[in-house]
């Protein structure tokens, strides 16, 4: 199995994405700029350090200027833009990670990770079910043990079982 840079991709969309990214950044910058007029504390007003929004306004000005430049002159990218099956796989994987994050809160680490580790390879076209199940079980249990007992990082628990 290997990755390739040509088949499921269309390089022509890069310019449109660059403009879209720049416009999204400009919109976000405008939203954040509106927040810089929020009420500040009396201590901040008296400070010689010019208050909490002094520095962010400089950065926002730079973001606005650079964002406009990028909209006007987007740089062509070497990264091929996914299309067709490639795009579906990437979008599906993003949704799978979102579901996994949700699952962590609802079902705890072990259950959600086992499901994620079993279903993701299937979704990506890997059909050796026994290998996937074995790898998922060994990997998830090892990671769980390592984090909980060696690194002492308490992972999200399931509401149904004690201990995991």
């Amino acid at each position, binding site marked *: *199995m*290997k990755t390739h840079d040509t088949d499921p991709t269309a390089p022509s969309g890069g310019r449109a994405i660059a403009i879209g990214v720049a416009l999204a950044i400009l919109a976000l910058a405008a939203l954040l700029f509106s927040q810089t007029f929020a009420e*500040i504390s009396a201590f901040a007003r008296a400070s010689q350090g010019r208050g909490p929004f002094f520095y962010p306004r400089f950065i926002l000005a730079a973001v606005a200027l650079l964002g406009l430049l990028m909209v006007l002159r987007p740089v062509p990218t070497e990264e091929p833009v996914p299309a067709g099956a490639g795009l579906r796989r990437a979008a599906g994987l993003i949704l799978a990670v979102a579901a996994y994050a949700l699952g962590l809160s609802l079902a705890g680490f072990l259950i959600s990770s086992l499901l994620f580790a079993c279903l993701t390879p299937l979704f990506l076209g890997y059909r050796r079910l026994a290998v996937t199940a074995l790898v998922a079980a060994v990997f998830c249990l090892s990671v769980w043990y390592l984090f909980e007992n060696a690194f002492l990082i308490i992972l999200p628990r399931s509401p149904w079982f004690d201990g995991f």
Partner: protein
Amino acid sequence: MDLILGTLGEIATPLALLCMVAGTVVGVLVGVLPGLGSVVGLTMVLPFTFSMPQVPALALMLGVYCGSVYGGSITAIILNTPGTPQSAATAMEGFPMARRGDADIAIGWVTSASTLGGLFSVLVLMLAGSWLAAFSLNFTPIEYFALGLFALTCIAGVSAGAMVPGLLSGACGLLVATIGADPVTGDLRFTFDSFELSAGITLIPVIVGLFAYSEMFLRAARLDPSAAREKIRVGFRLPPLKEWRSRLGMLARGSVVGCFVGALPGTGAATAAFIAYSEARRTSKRRDNFGKGEPDGLVACESANNAVTGSALVPTLALGVPGDPVTAVMLGALIIQGVTPGPQLFTQNIELVYAIFALLIVINLIMFATGALGAPLFTQVLRIPEPLLIAMVLIVSTLGAYGVRGNMLDVWIALGAGVAGVFMRLGGMPVAPFVIGMVLSPMIEQSLRQGLVLTRGNFLAFFERPIALVLFVVTAGILLWPLLRYLRRARNRTGR
């Protein structure tokens, strides 16, 4: 002579040697896992040191520290997923090398540069430790601001070929770092009344998202289940001596940058690595190869981030001032061991200082052996079928984001950064400048605001401090140099 023999006797005990090896291996493992860094590794082993004698306890802590700084580079090379923030620069050259099938030699470069950079910093610590500590005391917020601006030139350095998108990415990183409580007055900024956001957005989830998540999403898009497996070289290969000889200057420069930046409290290995990488990109004879897997970049950033390990101990040992959370944990371990760091340490407890020097030398050599012996194992990762690998990397990365604060918000931030990273990369916007911006923003803002308080709001007074003035001039020189070169070329053309 008695002192040297006594030091060797202390570090050559079986327990001390075991602690050095165990600490280095644990450190490399912690560094390899995205999201876990030196602090997690050190706090993990700290309880084991309580009942140990001084030297083995320090051996364990220093082993974890050095190993974790090195370990982060392995996943940066193999998976484009930096294990620690200081390895983010390594991914820029290491991953392209792995992609063209040279993961083994990339790990060889990184391991040897890390070891040599680490040894260089021990030498600096031995020869100039107390001088560097005294020099670092001259740094007021104004000098830190000048240093921060100087470090910002890295963004231009790593954005060659995509200057506007690179600068925009860096500016976005600077901006995102301002979310949360204002460092000077404590006022909340850009939190939209969210309690969770009042603590700000931390670096690790953003790195996990921009590098690990976005790489896996794009790998999934490019995946071709019907294609045959690529031949991948796994293992460890040392670069030929001839190749090394032409890069000794790069190694020296990277190590000097690491030693200097590391000795300044509050800076850290990530800043050092980015400055060294940017300098290498600017000055290398092979600068056209940067971004495509150029060993010069690997040598510069790896020697710099490992040189920090020795020099970061300078303010900790000589002044009792921890520069960052890592050295703060180290300071805690020293105090628990009954050592009082400070100027007297170098006069009243010189045996311990020599033992630390010797431990660092041996640990750097053990680190090389760990890398050489462990690399074949680490690079086996490349043989795992890609769909399985993608699932495993996403699980570990998610835990890395979660583990920083035990907070699900960080997982969602990582996912958001991952999606943003996909669009940034597809839109020709490099992601590394974003990380540089986030690393430098707190230092720049805090020092600027504190400097303005110190000078009663007079910014011109910033130029009256000699060290700051030198840094401002160098920064201006670096920024203006390409323009001057362009103008000179234009004049030459019109002259002809």
